[in-house]
């Protein structure tokens, strides 16, 4: 009885504090889950710029790829005295970290390395940078570009004023000003006030907003160094991105404006109302290794072809591989496999450029079967480029054509019922393929291609590797990297660099997807909504 009473009392006490206990357990649970899920980001040091050098000062700025650092800066020492290491902490301005090494000795080489502190542990970049302060002799000219940025026209031409003291007394034949390591044309010094003069320089840079170094060499000695942003002077395209709270995933598939996520044998859907991921099914029937996001067509999501390897049970050494695509029917959960066993290969071949394109309400699957170059990483491979048409009646893919042009890193995009092919094509010099440049082709219904745009020249081609391409506002938006987007306008047959309004925190740009009538892309699996406007 007494025991029972005590027990009842305890229950009553428990009842009173039950909500507290539940809350405590929840807290513990969530905190445990947080500990399990949240990993420290791997921070990379990016875009290290030496912004300005004079005889006793060096301005440096750089970016860190992720947040999560407690402090950051550089450690530096005089090259002749590596033991006397000093550190300077950086301050943050927008997304850049800035600092100055001050009180340096003139005409002296210094070595610096960037560091950051994460979880109270100081991590120092292995890469060393060498800077040399200017001589005091050259400091008397005190050269400086006052402008915060330099504008270039659509051909990359720019002018800039370099100001300084007593520039009229410079022996100009001994002065060489370089921008991005190329000598520019100098004008004669023009007096501003008193002993202060300016020299106007003229030159040309690549038509891409970028930071370039301006160097001044007088009788071979560096007397001036400054790096400045070069910005297009005119209306240009500006991309603004907005972070979303969508589920982090490498490949996001959209079906009827709902987001699906596929892993080997797990299908999940994003519950937009509750902002959470719902697992639809877990099936032993794997959808295979995903080569990219699914594309909606004919009530299904189609996934790019990947290499499938078959291991005979009785003789695993007799294995062979072949391309295989997949589709998934969200309404039924059914999966379909499209095998191309006629293209079986034993080894030394692999699949590239695997993708789909919907054109004139028809679905086409494309992929390349490339030769392995035999253990030379980075060396390109000879490839056969296949195009299949999806037959809506038979629900099968039928070979339609093979690409009739030599092209790598290619993508198909349909704009206004016109199919375009874009990628890198060979640059020939005297019959030799010596580089690659970006080109766009119009493709007819028989997949015959006609070149309509070729970037760059033989001497200076336009070489970049398109990661993804998508139709956007009657144009083709191409992602190259998290901070490099381009827009091809088929009406003008012109390629534009898209500038970023805001910097982006990420390393790897993922595919585009349309959701809620807004174009999205992923960076390090984090989804961003993007919009592009033309203006200044």
């Amino acid at each position: 009885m007494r025991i029972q009473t005590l027990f009842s009392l305890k229950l009553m006490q428990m009842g009173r504090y039950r909500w507290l206990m539940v809350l405590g357990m929840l807290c513990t649970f969530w905190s445990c889950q947080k500990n399990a899920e949240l990993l420290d980001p791997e921070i990379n040091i990016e875009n290290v710029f030496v912004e300005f050098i004079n005889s006793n000062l060096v301005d440096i700025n750089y970016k860190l790829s992720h947040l999560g650092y407690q402090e950051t800066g550089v450690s530096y020492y005089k090259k002749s005295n590596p033991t006397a290491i000093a550190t300077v902490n950086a301050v943050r301005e927008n997304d850049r970290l800035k600092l100055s090494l001050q009180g340096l000795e003139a005409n002296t080489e210094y070595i610096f390395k960037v560091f950051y502190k994460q979880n109270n542990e100081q991590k120092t970049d292995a890469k060393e940078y060498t800077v040399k302060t200017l001589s005091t002799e050259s400091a008397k000219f005190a050269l400086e570009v006052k402008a915060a940025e330099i504008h270039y026209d659509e051909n990359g031409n720019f002018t800039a004023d370099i100001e300084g003291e007593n520039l009229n007394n410079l022996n100009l034949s001994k002065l060489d000003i370089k921008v991005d390591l190329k000598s520019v044309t100098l004008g004669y010094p023009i007096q501003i006030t008193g002993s202060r003069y300016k020299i106007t320089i003229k030159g040309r840079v690549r038509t891409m907003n970028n930071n370039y170094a301006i160097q001044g060499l007088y009788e071979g000695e560096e007397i001036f160094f400054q790096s400045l942003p070069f910005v297009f002077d005119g209306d240009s395209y500006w991309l603004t991105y907005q972070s979303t709270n969508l589920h982090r995933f490498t490949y996001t598939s959209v079906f009827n404006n709902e987001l699906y996520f596929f892993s080997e044998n797990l299908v999940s859907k994003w519950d937009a109302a509750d902002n959470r991921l719902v697992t639809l099914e877990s099936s032993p029937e794997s959808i295979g290794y995903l080569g990219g996001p699914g594309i909606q067509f004919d009530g299904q999501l189609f996934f790019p072809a990947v290499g499938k390897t078959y291991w005979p049970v009785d003789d695993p050494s007799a294995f062979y591989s072949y391309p295989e695509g997949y589709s998934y029917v969200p309404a039924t959960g059914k999966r379909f496999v499209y095998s191309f066993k006629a293209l079986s290969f034993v080894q030394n071949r692999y699949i590239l450029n695997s993708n789909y394109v919907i054109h004139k309400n028809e679905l086409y699957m494309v992929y390349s079967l490339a030769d392995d170059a035999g253990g030379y990483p980075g060396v390109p491979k000879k490839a056969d480029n296949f195009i299949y048409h999806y037959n809506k009646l038979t629900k099968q893919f039928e070979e339609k054509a093979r690409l009739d042009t030599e092209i790598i890193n290619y993508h198909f995009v349909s704009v206004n019922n016109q199919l375009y092919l874009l990628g890198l094509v060979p640059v020939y010099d005297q019959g030799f393929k010596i580089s690659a440049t970006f080109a766009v082709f119009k493709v007819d219904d028989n997949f015959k291609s006609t070149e309509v745009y070729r970037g760059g020249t033989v001497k200076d081609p336009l070489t970049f590797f398109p990661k993804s391409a998508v139709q956007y506002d009657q144009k083709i938006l191409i992602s190259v990297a998290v901070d490099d987007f381009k827009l091809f306008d088929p009406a003008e047959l012109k390629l534009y660099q898209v500038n970023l309004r805001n910097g982006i925190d990420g390393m790897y740009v993922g595919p585009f997807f349309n959701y809620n009538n807004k174009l999205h892309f992923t960076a390090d699996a984090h989804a961003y909504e993007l919009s592009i406007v033309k203006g200044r």
Partner: protein
Amino acid sequence: MFNSRIAVFWLVLFLFFSCKKDSVIKNEDNFVEQPEQLSELKAEVSAAGYEFVEVQWTAVNNTHFKAVTYSIYLDDQKVVDGLTTTKYSLINLKEGQDYAVKIRASTKDGKQIEQIVKASTLSSSSGGRIYQEYSIHSYSWMSGPAGVQKLSDGGHLIVNLLQHPDYFNEETFKIIVFRTDKSGHMLWYRLLSSMGYGDLQSSEILLTTRKEDQEGLIFMQDYAIKFTTTNGEILIKKRYKDNLNGEIFRTIYALPNEIIVGGEQGSLLSINPEDLSLSWLHTKASKSGLIMSINVDSKKNICYILRELNDEYSKIRVHKCNAKGEFIKEFSFDGALPDGGDLGGDMKVLLIDEQDNFYLFGGNSSFHHLLYLKFSADGKVLKRNEQIEYLWVRTAFFNDKGEIVVAGQMDGGGLNTYTGIYVFDKNMIIKSKNFYTDIPPHQLRGMTFNLDGSYNLFLNYMETYTYENSNFVFIKTDADGKI
């Protein structure tokens, strides 16, 4: 009485003082005002380039100590004023053009003096120092030792390997030949052949010309290419794979009607430059080893440095064959320094003078030691270095004065390396040394000389964290070899 005496006294005193008042001190201005003048202005052209002229003048003083500044006019157009220096360059000018440069010295209140000097920019037909950089594409670069041949018009033929990115399964190297005029301007370039990393067993590119520079001949790996020097078009290309059994060419010596070629395993070949046919071939002409450098004596004997694989590092061998490549005799020496301060090294260049004295230059690659040796036709050592000199020899030749110019690489530690040039007289006494430390660290790729004593240097800059310039560079030095 007393009163009248006092009155007289006062009167005298009054008169005295009244007289003194009359002698007033003169206050005339006798200063002779000097006319304000400027001292003489003497101006001259102190330097000229293809696109600039530099003028300098004597400092002008004002007799009234007023500040004098200078204005410069180019063909009557004011370029600059307010100068306080006495030297100025006019830039962005046209090559080979005459200009009138007026220098005006003036004070603020308008006192002025001026002088006009005639100046001309250099043209390609004028001498002087030249600097040119060659870049074929924004993404390609020329690398490795170059074959360089000076032509009779003062221009050059240059053969090099052009490296470029490989996106389409095409080899990453091209053999490139280009022609320059005497000012170093590139007249044309031609891509001759494609090569992959695997094809490159040696980076030696051997070049010669014939038929009064109308034809060029390249020997590389195990093939030869004959091309026209008007545009680089290939005339004949021939491979000697079947003859050489995997051996590749190392050195050539051009005679009027044959090219003597030495291989990396001791083969000696005679190739007919007309059709590139093989006249004769001696596999391991004397012994198995690397034929480093070939020359021909006055009796048309073919002589060469042979590096036997199993030799001591200090062993020096020179073999002599007859004009048909048949072995006659060997000269051998110990190349180590007498005091043991050096272990010897490869002899790279063999020169022979009119008296059939032999001159050998080479050295130790690990320490950049320069070794040299002179011996007579009968093998008697006439001179050798007795102390260490520093140079990693790349080339050597007789200049028009009969001196021996030896050029190579100096080691400045780390990535810092630069050209060094030693000049020897025929007695192998070092007459001069020149080191090119004023330009960024670089690798000498080829060199020729001009009759005025200047050199034509071909080089690549070393790329460092702070300096990136992958262009191929031509520098013509001053007559004293300075740049």
